[in-house]
């Protein structure tokens, strides 16, 4: 058996595959990468919780043999917060999509980041609402076509990672479904990080986003990721003009973009609070 088949046998729920995702969808790659990262960290299945919202990406939780919940649109983070507060020993991973996380879930995103609670948020960013057939999200590049933007979108899109970092996230990373070994690595580091970790994964929805925006098929969309993802080390060496050129061309840095280990994690701070309360302070 291949490595992936071994991992599927170990970490996916028997009888729940095949998944619902389309041929060419990046979600399987991301979910596989999460599993590889968990395996790399040597976590026991009973010690992992995977909480998701609603959308194609959020179906991931049902396939995985951990403590899982496929909750409400945009609401994975507060429910995951409750799980973590109820049992801080759990490694809580949150799977969300670009719409789930930055539109309806935006408020919960900035507050989870602000609290620096030890959750690992993996945002499957395919720049579209896939499950409902191709509407635009706050991560859809301006000027794209979508079923609710027949004249192309006029809304600028979020810089999700800048938003999360400004809100207080202490581990910020970006991967793609093309650069898989790096993706596994940044997810594993995010899981290990004690604090709020966010990993944005640039993914492809060939059926809903790709088709409407003439991006070719799955292979072409993956090549687009190859050509637009720039390693952080390379990105950091670019001067301001080159960076501006890269940004204008739709390029983005990938890898661990920010990590801060000096901010107290929320559940640890709460344990101290309990101690103070019980000592009568």
């Amino acid at each position, binding site marked *: 058996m291949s490595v992936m088949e071994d991992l599927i046998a170990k970490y996916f729920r028997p009888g729940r595959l095949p998944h619902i995702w389309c041929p060419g969808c990046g979600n399987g790659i991301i979910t596989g990468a999460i599993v590889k990262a968990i395996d790399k960290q040597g976590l026991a299945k009973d010690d992992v919780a995977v909480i998701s919202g609603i959308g194609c990406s959020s179906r991931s*939780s049902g396939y995985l043999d951990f403590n*899982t919940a496929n909750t409400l649109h945009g609401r994975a983070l507060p429910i995951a917060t409750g799980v973590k507060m109820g*049992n801080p020993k759990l490694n809580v991973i949150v799977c969300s999509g670009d719409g789930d996380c930055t539109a309806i879930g935006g408020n919960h995103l900035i507050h989870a980041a602000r609290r620096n609670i030890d959750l690992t948020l993996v945002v499957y960013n395919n720049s579209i609402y896939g499950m409902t057939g191709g509407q635009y999200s706050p991560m859809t590049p301006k000027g794209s076509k979508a079923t609710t933007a027949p004249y192309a979108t006029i809304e600028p899109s979020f810089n999700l990672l800048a938003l999360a970092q400004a809100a207080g996230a202490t581990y910020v990373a970006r991967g793609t479904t093309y650069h898989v070994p790096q993706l596994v690595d940044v997810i594993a580091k995010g899981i290990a990080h004690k604090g709020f970790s966010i990993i944005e994964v640039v993914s492809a929805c060939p059926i809903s986003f790709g088709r409407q925006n003439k991006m070719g098929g799955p292979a072409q969309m993956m090549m687009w990721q190859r050509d637009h993802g720039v390693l952080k080390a390379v990105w950091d060496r670019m001067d301001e003009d080159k960076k501006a050129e890269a940004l204008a061309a739709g390029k983005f840095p990938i890898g661990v973009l920010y990590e801060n280990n000096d901010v107290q994690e929320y559940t640890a701070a709460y344990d101290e609070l309990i101690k103070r309360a019980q000592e009568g302070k």
Partner: protein
Amino acid sequence: MSRILLLQGNQAVVEGAIAAGVKFYGGYPITPSTEIAEQLALRLPQVGGKFMQTEDEIAGLGTVIGASMAGKKAMTATSGPGFSLKQEMLGLACIAEIPCVIVNVQRVGPATGQPTSPAQGEVMQARWGTHGDHWLITVSPSSVPECFDLTLRAVALSEKYRCPVILLMDEVIGHMREKIELPDNYDEIPQAERKQPTCAPEDYLAYGCEDGSKVPAMAPFGSGYRWHVTGLVHDETGFPKGTGAATKESQDRLRTKITDNLDDIVQVENYKMEDAEFAVIAFGGAARTAYEAIDMARAEGLKVGFMRPITIWPFAEKQIKEVAGKVKGILVHELNCGQYVLEVERAVAGKVPVSLFAKYDNESATPAELLAEIKKAMA
């Protein structure tokens, strides 16, 4: 050993929560429930529990649901505007069968309404606020001691039936202060515990029921029993199932889980009903007016009694029908434009006249006002 205190209704809810073993509160400040949040912020860490003031009302119930999945007894409190925001989460708790308690200290609505004045405008919303067919339990205290008792009962019912339980209060009860006797030691209070699986983890069906029960065992996350929570219609495995049969079976079990157990769930209080020829029906804050009005009526020789629903949902169908079988007329008194009365009219089905004294001008009715309405209805 016990102690006598002068407590606010909201404070009594807090003590009831602590006594019931609630170990997590997530919620948002909103008049007239804020004291519950403030007092639990103080009390929960003292008993090793956790309090979160969440970013919004939705996260309030969301964190509660998460904590319950992790095995903790969890509660939130709000008023009308927050109760409206929480509805989708409530539906998730219904279909995924997550025990939790939602306190709604009602105020005048809709929207911002009249934040510091009492009302009972969420009677129907408590039953039907969330979309889809669903079944849950709602209880309503009429005194400060009952705030303590019904919080304990709400937690116990939510654990026993794996459903959300709404503690429906109003600003009268939430903010009034009266005498309450509290045990010195909450350790002696029996703790409700949700059913745990006894099978091997690999055989666990998260939504499977044993020996004719309609309530599945619920292992906490991290216990060694791994399972899946979803808001999608699911079968006994807990995984989504999209067939028509699956939807029907799911609805039937979730409904009969509650409706098969009305004798256990539905409670009412009968006050001077034994020889009553006319009955008043009132609950929550409105009930306080009723006790006095009934006494005044009796002093004038009127054979009036008062039935107080303690359980608002499921509706006290049997009890209301019994009352209709005994008396010549019924007067429903509520602090809204008429919501509970609709159920009473339905259940009475024309057997006796049903009248309504609706009070919706920011205040409780006085006993004299209610007495005048009773006489009018009896005429």
